[in-house]
């Protein structure tokens, strides 16, 4: 497989870049498109469709094909992969429970390939309660059909920090409430990756005393939003608080589980009226949480080092690279966010595309598929 990555800030720029890419006779069969919600998704889709390129698309909150991160732009990874080795499945879940839809899709994937490898994205209404179903539960549903060993990587579609609605799309379908899977034949396309976080729980353990869906109202019987502001050391006026967007602050809770490692839940939004905060992923009343501090800057070097090691040990000749990095990471690392992305890209030195997500899917180092927050998930692909 040969891959090429292109980017642009408009459909025109993408058109130009695409033309250049295929000028040498390169015939991509698959395009992974990460695109700002502000862009003309249809136009870009048409562009690719005209070239008979199948599209796996998701809106983003910042996108990249190298260390340069754009916001509001388009990043595309083109691959001339054998169409027999992959299939793109997109389902809208509005008419059914997301869980049922995910099950159906996983069954389809499993029906198509004996050992499917899944690149996953979802679109959703960020303020809705269903959002939490597109996290752990989605992963568990897929595993329940395709098996625990199934490789799943991906990230939830973003909307440039608006936290309203995101989109996933293919050549002819586009939905704000959808699950999209790029299913590879795992026997033909090998994939390896890592989910890196570095978020550190600190402070005392607290209890979620009131939560509905993914909205937390009270922590230790105190208004959740006030607690979050307190930890940030911010003294905001009510007016400031109403417009305060915590998603850019890289705030996250570490939620302890009865078994295994604590998982990270990033804070999405404030609702100052009822002093609630939304978290990216599921949370329940009675959950024990700790506030976390962002990773040290050294994590960037660590992620790079790990990528180099995996490249060396497991996939010295990758064909392409996809990176799903949490929006929290963008704010946590600021101008250095690109360094992390570039560090991984350089390790493999192959065409790459990635975006800043509203939650990541990927296998942790201890071996389980998880839904993450504030994590950088990357996956290297190789067709054999």
């Amino acid at each position, binding site marked *: 497989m040969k891959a090429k990555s292109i980017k642009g800030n408009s459909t025109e720029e993408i058109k130009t870049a695409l033309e250049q890419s295929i000028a040498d006779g390169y015939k991509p069969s698959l395009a992974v498109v990460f695109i700002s919600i502000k862009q003309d998704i249809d136009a870009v889709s048409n562009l690719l469709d005209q070239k008979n390129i199948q599209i796996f698309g998701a809106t983003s909150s910042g996108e990249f094909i190298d260390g340069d991160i754009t916001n509001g732009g388009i990043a595309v990874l083109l691959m001339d992969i054998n169409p027999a080795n992959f299939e793109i499945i997109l389902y809208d879940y509005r008419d059914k429970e997301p869980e049922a839809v995910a099950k159906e899709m996983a069954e389809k994937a499993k029906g198509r390939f004996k050992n499917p490898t899944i690149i996953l994205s979802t679109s959703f209404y960020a303020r809705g309660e269903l959002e939490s179903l597109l996290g752990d539960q989605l992963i568990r549903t897929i595993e329940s059909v395709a098996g625990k060993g199934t490789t799943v990587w991906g990230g939830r579609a973003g909307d440039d920090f608006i936290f309203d609605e995101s989109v996933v799309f293919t050549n002819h379908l586009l939905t704000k409430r959808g699950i999209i899977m790029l299913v590879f034949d795992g026997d033909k396309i090998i994939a390896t990756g890592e989910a890196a976080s570095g978020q550190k729980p*600190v*402070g*005392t353990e607290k209890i979620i005393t009131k939560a509905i869906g993914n909205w937390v109202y009270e922590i230790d019987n105190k208004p959740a939003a006030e607690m979050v502001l*307190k*930890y*940030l*050391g911010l003294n905001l006026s009510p007016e400031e608080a109403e417009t305060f967007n915590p998603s850019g602050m890289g705030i996250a809770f570490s939620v302890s589980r009865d078994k295994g490692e604590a998982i990270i839940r990033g804070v999405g939004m404030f609702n100052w009226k009822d002093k609630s905060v939304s978290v990216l992923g599921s949370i329940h009343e009675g959950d024990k949480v700790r*506030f976390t*501090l*962002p990773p040290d*800057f050294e994590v960037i070097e660590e992620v790079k080092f790990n990528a180099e090691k995996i490249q060396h040990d497991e996939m010295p000749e990758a064909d392409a690279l996809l990176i799903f990095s949490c929006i929290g990471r963008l704010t*946590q690392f*600021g*101008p*250095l966010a690109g360094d992390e992305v570039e560090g991984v890209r350089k390790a493999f030195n192959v065409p790459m595309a990635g975006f800043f997500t509203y939650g990541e899917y990927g296998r942790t180092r201890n071996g389980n598929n998880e839904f993450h927050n504030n994590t950088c998930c990357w996956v290297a692909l190789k067709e054999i």
Partner: protein
Amino acid sequence: MNQNLRKITQFLQQNDSLSVEEKASLSKVVMDVDKELTITTFKLDRTEKVKRTTAILLEETIEELERKRKAVEAQNRDLEIEASLERVRSSTMMMYNSSDVGNATAVLFAELENLGIKTIRCGIIIGKKEEEKIELWTASGAGKGQVMQIVGEVDVNIHPLLKGSFEAWLQEKDFFSFKLQGNDKDLYYRSLATSLNYPISNTMGSLPDHYCTSFMFREGGLFVFTFEPFSSENSTIFKKFANVFSQTYRRYVDLKQAEAQAKEARKASSLDRVRGQIASMRTADDLQRITPVIWHELNSLDVPFIRCGVFIVEEEKSNVHVYLTTPDVKPLGALSLPIESTSLTKIIVHHWEKGIVYREHWNRDQFINWTQSMLELGQIQDRITYQGSELPPESLDLHFVPFVQGMLYVGNVSPLSDEKIELVKALAEAFSIAYARYEDFYKLEKAKESIEATLTELKATQSQLIQSEKMASLGELTAGIAHEIQNPLNFVNNFSEVSTELLDEMKDEIAAGNWQLATEIADDVKQNLERINHHGKRADAIVKGMLQHSQASSGQKEPTDINALADEYLRLAYHGLRAKDKSFNATLKTEFDENIGKISVVPQDIGRVILNLITNAFHAVTAPPGVGIEKRGTDYKPTVTVKTASWVPPSGGKGVLISVSDNGPGIPTHIVDKIFQPFFTTKPTGQGTGLGLSLSYDIVKAHGGELKVKTKEGEGAEFIIQIPIQT
């Protein structure tokens, strides 16, 4: 881009002295610097934010730790309090008798002090609902050395503090607090001092104003005096202690009850033992056994005494009998004093008549004087014995407890409590029963002696009767014996006459010198003399037999030919009757089993039985008309049959059977059951003793046998002697 850097870039671009390459190179440097500056600014900013958050979290963590530390401290305090309470509970559990309550309460106050609660003093009140009183317990001394004391009861109406506490307890409130200040404070302590027989320190009234707080439990309250109002934390602690004390108090009450019950049980068992001993009294002498038991039980009931005794009042003789002993029943003296002889006896009797306890205290001199007076009256022999020791007691408290017949005396070195006197009373009552029994026995023994004398007389009469029975039967025999003796006598007479004639003839022959004939005659004479001797011996034997019959039997068993015995008595009886009544005639039948051999019996006794039965049988067959005579036809032949035979006793082994039967009128059914009873007779008064069959029955029984009768009215009777053969 940083504004300054932008200015530098602009400056570089506008600087014509630089070449395009130089401008580009310098611009890139500026760009790189800008980037680094951006990164550094970001890092600083983020670090600042992280520091801020970290500081907040750290502060929070410290706060949390502080909270935890306080919680641990509070927990430690709680544990300390709980341990204290546990120690009080333990001391409560360790209470084995009610007096231990003092220790348990002292532990409670010591623990309160250990918990560092500053108090002026503490105590316990126990509410008495009906009386509107409270019982006051206070701790005297300080710290661990303090001792609880039940001070007494006080009327709650003497002061509002007490009234308030009492009301709070009645209303089951948790606590009640009262401030003692100014004159009221003095008033309180003065009121208390006058109500209680307990010294209250004069300094209490002069203390600065202070507070009394009582923490209520079910039975009362735990009160504490403090200079400051009680803190809520200390209140909580005191409340807990009050509840624990409630357990202590309940245990105290339980123990008191148990002790009262145990005391009652001890008293009861003590009395039971005395009653048991009384019940086992069999003679008047047994009273001597009971008296020590009384003293022993007094000891076991923890009644202290050094001397004791019984004063028996004989009203009719105006006398008092005194028996004094030591607690271990060493006799001190036995006095017999006329009631009027001493003031003590007078007053004792006076109290006895009224049925009330009398107490008197003697000092040494009074004891000596009394002893001296007793010596002078000759009631005691020596002083030392009476004292029971070398020296007279320094002090003696005399207690006289009345009972029906007198007073129980208990002397001790100090006065006995009412409770002890009650115990003495219980024992005095028991002793009274024993004494009454003694008196009964005494009377009984006198009666017994009189009965025994009567019995002796009766026995003598009876033996006389038996003798007369023997004589009567001897009379029966006399004729037979005479007849029996007549035969040998006839022989003796005849042979002696013949011998006299022969001797005359022999003399003639000797004179004639006819020696041969003389010798032949002498031989005949000798033969006659032998015959005379033989018949003489026979007569002798008959007489001896008769004597034997009339004498008491030796009781010695000897092998006896039963057939010969039976035969002899049959003939004796027959001839005896014939001798008396010439018209008497009866057929005698004997069916002797020759195989029975000699049997070991007392021959005189068995002979007497056989004789009695045969005589009875003869009488039956010759009974005068009117007794079954109508059944006798002209062909009636009076017949008496004597049989012997082997017999197998029901228990196995061997035996003989002697049967005497007649064909007389038989024994009427209504008297069959009575014929073996002594003195039963069908003969006219004076003709029979009524002892014949009774004695016969006893004799056969004495041989281990049976005497039975079979009879049918009009057909005769059969008496059967069954004797087992002793092997």
